[in-house]
């Protein structure tokens, strides 16, 4: 049942149907996926007159766009905002300059750095579960999924975990306001000031740049010159916005699935070796990001005439359920044998935090199921609400019997 978008009569643009799709509204969970799946089945590319951008729904086309950064640039990654007032680093930087920033950042977010902080991640996750295990219920989003990844993130970039509530508050305000309005401006300014003070502190204290992330940035060069403070601020803003909301959301969708699918939950509890493949499958089945690219030039893409300056939205939730790419694409198979999903994007801009996110998801699933192996959704599924834009669950009420496994 498609209710939230309209096909605008017989209108078409360069052979593509015109739709009116407002992506930033709250809806019951699953409706976004159903609509985007229906769009993919009907056509590979649309023009969305709400926001004025192209919408690409299929996997192979999406891969081509990710792998063609010369035409499909990162000048903006927000489909409805072709000329953003901010510049995120590295997201809004194009190759070849982008490579320099990624080389500075990749090491800190690579598998070895992530493995080093895994024990800390585990203890932060246990702390969050300790807080709720004896209650017999919790809002997973706020109390677990949104609690420990922030501390892990701060650990990775050598900031005090006690500052986690500040980061949670800033990111929630910014995402809930879709980055506009007075509340978002206050949150943005406060977070910016935090990082300004941080840079000043690290300049004074002269920490070892192998041991402190901010000092590493201060010691880094771009085009042969020290990285400007403005760049460092833009890196921190991006890391905060890209790293916190997404892990919380990915874990929340995983727990929602397992709370409502007893056989798979049983398998996860009794065969924890399945967790890595289950994580890839949850990433594939519940992509969060409606990613944008901006055309650097007029370009004919698979018969569609696109114009310089226009935006393209890559509708990853539809793309990752494309039956041309995945067998039984609409089913969640926690032991899927072939899973080359693009939920972390692709091409040069592949999510910097993907290794971190995987580790946090593994820790989150392992620790939860050791402590609370049997649990259920504490409300009808129709009452679980999904935020549009960057998909996320507003809350996830779970409950379990006390004394049974806790």
């Amino acid at each position, binding site marked *: 049942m498609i209710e939230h978008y309209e096909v605008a009569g017989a209108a078409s643009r360069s052979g593509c149907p015109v739709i009116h799709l407002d992506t930033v509204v709250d809806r019951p969970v699953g409706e976004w996926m159903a609509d985007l799946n229906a769009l993919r089945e009907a056509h590979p590319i649309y023009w969305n007159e709400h926001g004025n951008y192209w919408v690409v729904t299929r996997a192979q086309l999406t891969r081509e766009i990710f792998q063609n950064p010369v035409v499909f640039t990162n000048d903006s990654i927000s489909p409805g905002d072709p000329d953003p007032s901010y510049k995120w680093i590295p997201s809004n930087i194009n190759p070849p300059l982008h490579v320099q920033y990624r080389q500075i950042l*990749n090491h800190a977010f690579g598998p070895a750095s992530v493995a080093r902080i895994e024990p800390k991640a585990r203890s932060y996750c246990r702390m969050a579960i300790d807080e709720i295990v004896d209650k017999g219920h919790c809002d997973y989003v706020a109390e677990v999924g949104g609690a420990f990844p922030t501390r892990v993130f701060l650990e990775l970039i050598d900031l005090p975990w006690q500052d986690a509530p500040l980061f949670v508050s800033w990111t929630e305000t910014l995402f809930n306001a879709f980055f506009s309005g007075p509340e978002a401006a206050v949150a943005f300014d406060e977070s910016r000031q935090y990082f300004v003070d941080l840079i000043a502190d690290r300049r004074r204290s002269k920490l070892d740049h192998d041991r402190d992330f901010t000092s590493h940035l201060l010691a880094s060069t771009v085009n042969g010159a020290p990285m400007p403070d403005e760049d460092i601020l833009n890196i921190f803003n991006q890391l905060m916005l890209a790293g916190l909301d997404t892990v919380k959301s990915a874990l929340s969708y995983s727990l929602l699935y397992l709370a409502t699918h007893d056989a798979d939950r049983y398998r996860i509890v009794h065969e924890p070796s399945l967790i890595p493949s289950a994580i890839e499958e949850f990433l594939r089945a519940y992509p969060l990001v409606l990613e944008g690219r901006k055309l650097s030039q007029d370009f004919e893409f698979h018969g569609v005439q696109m114009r310089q300056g226009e935006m393209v939205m890559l509708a990853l939730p539809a793309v990752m359920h494309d039956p041309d790419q995945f067998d039984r694409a609409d089913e969640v198979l926690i032991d899927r044998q072939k899973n*080359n999903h693009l939920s972390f994007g692709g091409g040069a801009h592949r999510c910097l935090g993907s290794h971190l996110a995987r580790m946090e998801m593994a820790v989150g699933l392992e620790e939860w199921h050791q402590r609370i192996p049997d649990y259920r959704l504490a409300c009808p599924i129709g009452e679980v609400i999904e935020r549009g834009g960057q998909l996320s669950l507003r809350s996830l009420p779970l409950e379990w019997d006390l004394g049974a496994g806790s």
Partner: protein
Amino acid sequence: MKVSVDAQKCSGHGRCYTVAPGLLEPDDEGFVTIRGSAVDLPPGSAADARKAAEWCPEGAITLTDD
């Protein structure tokens, strides 16, 4: 048999060395160490190499007969 990794396409997803840990490994940045080169497959590793290729989101990994 050789396995090769296209340096232009490989973007450090890390799926290959995760599903074929005995065959492939990451560098400090998270790229597979053989990015941009072709290496002979050790005996008995063809299945692992095929899996690595199948899991690569970029289609960067190719297997070729000698």
